[in-house]
């Protein structure tokens, strides 16, 4: 049994909500509840499946469940699965409510701090006329009331602050003190697999508040870095947060990842971290096509995600699908059934230039579990990566 990092070990910066005693304690309970769900309740679900639900299904149907849908059918009455789901769902609701109350108390100070940091900065470019995609505005992703784009007041940053503070509790600090494990994992992969790769321009599509953008700045100090998102509150907070941490030259740009205002052939690295599963099926190929448009010859696009379902046992697919079913991740299931490698190939890169890999975050200080390969059905600091190299445009062979 390993314990989640207590909330007070989170990296401090001027934009972080100043949580009081009970607010910190509440986040700690949430982190422990999630650890309990993953380490104690999830194994009970597997046990229940193997010891009773599977046999009951076989007796009734004469065969094993063929896919995750049949596993779900076999398990929907099971008390272990119901208890697991009730505790997990309630923990997410408690986490969201705890964060919402914290930032409501701090909303004015945070908004003021963001305004002071952002005022007149050329590195923050917002577009009030941007047509926000409905697949973003219509969903309270992972139960965050109002989603990424809503604003309670002018210049509101409260949902972004809630996301920043609460994520540390949700993942028990496994992303390191700056919640940036995916960015660090990408950097480690690049340095290990392609030590000569020296991008001059890096684009992070769907950057959110830029958690995972900043490790790229540390790794490639000479590169121009553009962090793109549709949500103004996330960008306002993220830009101010980056400045508070001493990153003054990362650009934050409000734009749709399917159609950015950036020039053709202007980037050497176009990446996403945990974005594709929050993207609609219609937008996904357009994002890949946009990466292709942006990349120069020799450039790389890479996307960190949870692994696709294909090849996984039906029971594991079913467990990994929990967020898609019960955590307001409406695109989760479809994304994990999508062959992103094939989609990249068809988006202009050509199948010969597409790859799949795995990225793992190196250990970071401040976390008691950041260096573990602890399987948490979607919340461990290791990712599936799918990507493609840009050869000279027009020469990529599709096959």
């Amino acid at each position: 049994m390993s314990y989640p990092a207590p909330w007070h070990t989170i990296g401090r910066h001027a934009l972080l909500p100043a949580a009081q005693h009970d607010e910190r304690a509440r986040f700690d309970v949430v982190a422990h509840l999630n650890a309990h769900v993953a380490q104690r309740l999830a194994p009970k679900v597997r046990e229940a499946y193997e010891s009773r639900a599977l046999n009951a299904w076989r007796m009734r149907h004469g065969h094993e469940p063929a896919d995750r849908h049949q596993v779900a059918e076999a398990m929907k009455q099971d008390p272990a699965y119901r208890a697991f789901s009730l505790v997990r769902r309630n923990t997410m609701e408690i986490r969201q409510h705890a964060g919402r109350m914290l930032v409501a108390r701090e909303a004015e100070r945070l908004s003021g701090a963001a305004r002071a940091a952002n005022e007149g900065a050329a590195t923050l470019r917002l577009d009030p006329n941007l047509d926000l995609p409905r697949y973003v505005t219509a969903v309270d992703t992972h139960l965050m009331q109002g989603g990424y784009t809503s604003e309670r007041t002018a210049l509101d940053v409260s949902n972004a602050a809630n996301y920043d503070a609460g994520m540390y509790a949700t993942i028990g600090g496994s992303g390191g003190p700056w919640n940036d494990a995916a960015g660090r994992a990408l950097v480690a992969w690049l340095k290990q697999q392609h030590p000569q790769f020296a991008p001059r321009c890096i684009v992070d599509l769907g950057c959110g508040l830029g958690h995972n953008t900043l490790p790229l700045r540390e790794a490639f100090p000479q590169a121009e870095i553009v962090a793109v998102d549709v949500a103004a509150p996330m960008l306002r907070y993220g830009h101010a947060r980056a400045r508070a941490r001493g990153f003054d030259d990362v650009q934050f740009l409000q734009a749709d990842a399917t159609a950015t205002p950036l020039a053709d052939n202007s980037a050497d690295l176009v990446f996403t971290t945990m974005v594709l599963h929050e993207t609609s099926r219609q937008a996904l190929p357009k994002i890949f096509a946009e990466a292709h448009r942006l990349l120069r010859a020799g450039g790389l696009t890479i996307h960190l995600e949870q692994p696709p379902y294909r090849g996984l046992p039906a029971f594991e697919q079913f467990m990994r699908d929990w967020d898609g079913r019960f955590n307001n991740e409406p695109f989760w299931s479809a994304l994990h059934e999508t062959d992103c490698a094939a989609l990249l190939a068809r988006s202009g890169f050509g199948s010969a230039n597409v790859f799949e890999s795995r990225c793992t975050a190196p250990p970071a200080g401040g976390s008691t579990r950041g260096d573990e390969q602890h399987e948490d059905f979607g919340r461990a600091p290791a990712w599936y990566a799918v990507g493609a190299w840009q050869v000279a445009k027009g020469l990529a062979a599709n096959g």
Partner: protein
Amino acid sequence: MDSTDMDHSLPFDADPIQPAPAAAIGRRSESPQFTDDPMLDRLYGITMALITELAVTRTRLDTVEKLLARRQLVAGGEIEDFVPDDGEAAARSRLQAEYLDRVLRSLD
């Protein structure tokens, strides 16, 4: 995913301090029901909230004890060995009885 079923709008000017109604937390769909009885799902929700708040209270108490120990106002073991005097014990008994009367009122 069909986009036509994504219209469970939540007015975002709702008071942020108020917990969102369970059914409105996800605008995309109603809150899932995991048991055969919606009241049981609600009871789980209340129990989970109480678990959380009890843990928060225990942590706060632990903070108080640690601060008292740091400032040497309470010596190690003094809390574990604490025995109330007769007057304190009587007052505590009354508090306990009144507390149980209150929380078990629905069984009367």
